């Protein structure tokens, strides 16, 4: 294992510490328990938004704390959901009296820990609503699984819910927007290489030199199917095909296309993937009205990519375009 780290046990606190210094204009970090919060929190009368989960997916979530997006992020250990304590602390830190929305990716650990935290915060008189993100079409949503995972679509939920909170929507409305985004976004990913969790020291799985893993999650967990390496265009057809099968578009509908790098993929490859995905959507008469290309929901140094499509309407587009000022996403100010 070769990593630019010191003691594996200190990876999260040191990274969060560095993040807070580098972005002290936007956030501050609490280290006991660990969370990252907007420097101007709590904002009276504004719904607070808290997200979190295991570390290793950066910039998710801390990179999205700031004006127009999250009020706080709670990073757990690498790939391990945080415990309730820091979630409760973050929830209290951002409560401006209008209640707090928890945006939770659908993993048993995240769901259970946020659930406990919500109960504890409610016991302290804070109104908490929760939205579970489960955009990953690689997993069948059935009685026979823990349900779909929350992956890169989470970024879109956070941005759009954040804009709704910033314009003054109340808790129910912000939760409704977040739910709406989640219901209209689908994602599918592929890995070319595995990643190494610092405390594990070994790759989560091994792929031969000509193998790729289709339907990968974001925790270094193996995907659903292992196939031989294909040209990028063929891989894009698989991923986007699965997304569009699950959420068909009518010609003329608008899409936001997110091509998300898993951390170790060069940018040229992301744009090669983006190009073919945009072409396929155009062939189907779908207008790619908004785009986002880059590393937003990663798995440490994993090489790979996920493709997300969000079905836009005027409301979602306007909220997407609204100003945002975070470490990892910024426009309009």
């Amino acid at each position, binding site marked *: 294992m070769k990593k630019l780290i010191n003691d594996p046990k200190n990876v999260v606190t040191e990274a969060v510490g560095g993040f807070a210094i580098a972005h002290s204009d936007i956030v501050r970090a609490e280290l006991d328990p660990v969370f990252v919060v907007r420097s101007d929190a709590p904002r009276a009368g504004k719904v607070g938004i808290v997200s979190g989960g295991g570390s290793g997916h950066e910039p998710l979530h801390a990179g999205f704390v700031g004006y127009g997006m999250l009020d706080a992020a709670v990073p757990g250990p690498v790939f391990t959901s945080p415990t309730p304590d820091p979630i409760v602390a973050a929830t209290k830190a951002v409560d401006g009296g209008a209640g707090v929305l928890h945006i939770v990716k659908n993993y048993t650990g995240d769901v*259970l*820990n946020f659930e406990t935290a919500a109960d504890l915060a409610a016991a302290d008189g804070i109104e908490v609503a929760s939205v579970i993100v489960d955009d990953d079409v690689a997993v069948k949503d059935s009685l*026979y699984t823990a349900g779909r995972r929350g992956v890169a679509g989470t970024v879109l939920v956070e941005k759009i819910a954040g804009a709704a909170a910033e314009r003054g929507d109340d808790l129910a409305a912000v939760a409704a927007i977040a739910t709406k985004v989640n219901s209209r976004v689908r994602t599918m990913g592929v890995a070319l290489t595995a990643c190494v969790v610092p405390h*594990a020291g070994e790759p989560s799985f091994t792929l031969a030199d000509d193998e790729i893993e289709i339907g990968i999650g974001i925790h270094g967990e193996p995907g659903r199917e292992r196939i031989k390496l294909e040209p990028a265009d063929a891989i894009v057809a698989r991923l986007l095909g699965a997304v569009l099968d699950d959420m068909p578009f009518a010609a003329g509908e608008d899409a936001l296309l997110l091509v998300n790098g898993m951390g170790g993929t060069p940018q040229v490859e992301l744009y090669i993937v983006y190009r073919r995905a945009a072409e396929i959507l155009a062939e189907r008469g779908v207008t790619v009205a908004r785009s986002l290309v880059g590393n937003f929901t990663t798995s440490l140094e994993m090489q790979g990519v996920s493709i997300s499509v969000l079905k836009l309407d005027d409301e979602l587009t306007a909220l997407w375009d609204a100003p945002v000022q975070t470490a990892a996403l910024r426009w309009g100010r």
Partner: protein
Amino acid sequence: MGASLGADWARAWITASAEVLAENRVALITLDREIGDGDHGENMDRGFQAALGKLDELPDSATPGDVFKVVATTLISTVGGAAGPLYGTAFLKASLAVGAEEQLDAAALVLALTAARDGVVLRGKAEPGDKTMIDAWTPAVDAATAAAAAGASPYEVLKAAADAAERGAEATEPLVARKGRASYLGERAIGHRDPGAQSSALLLRAAEQVARAGAQA
């Protein structure tokens, strides 16, 4: 009937669990890497080391239920992941089940084990055969119940539970998972043991071993 088990046993159990989880840290990480995300050993080790530290802060008068309670809150606040809330709830429910009893007899142990298992089901909604820790806990509860009904000592109850949990953990190997991360893998989970079932078996074996040591002493 045999000697009942008191707070000394409860403390010794947690100490032994912390040891066995530290020893099995890498083994549990490896199991979880195969069908999960490779952190179960790290999570359990972190949690039980923390619980160990909390034991010292308990007053001498602490009951077994007090021990279970402090373990519960410590696991909830240090483990994270799926295992933290699940094991935390298990110990919390066990603590409630035994109340302020100073000494746990066979019947009390069965109550505690049953409450623990029910707590995990309440939070995680898993059924037997879903390839989770429930596949260790449910046979353990069944075996403990049967043993107690047959007049076993507390130590014998724990022995029955530990034996059954080990068999249950092993029996997760051929299963497809329907809960937790391994459920994403479909058929590919077949042939791998569930890490949570394995850690559950380790915990119950530790409970039995310290009881045996106490019984022999």
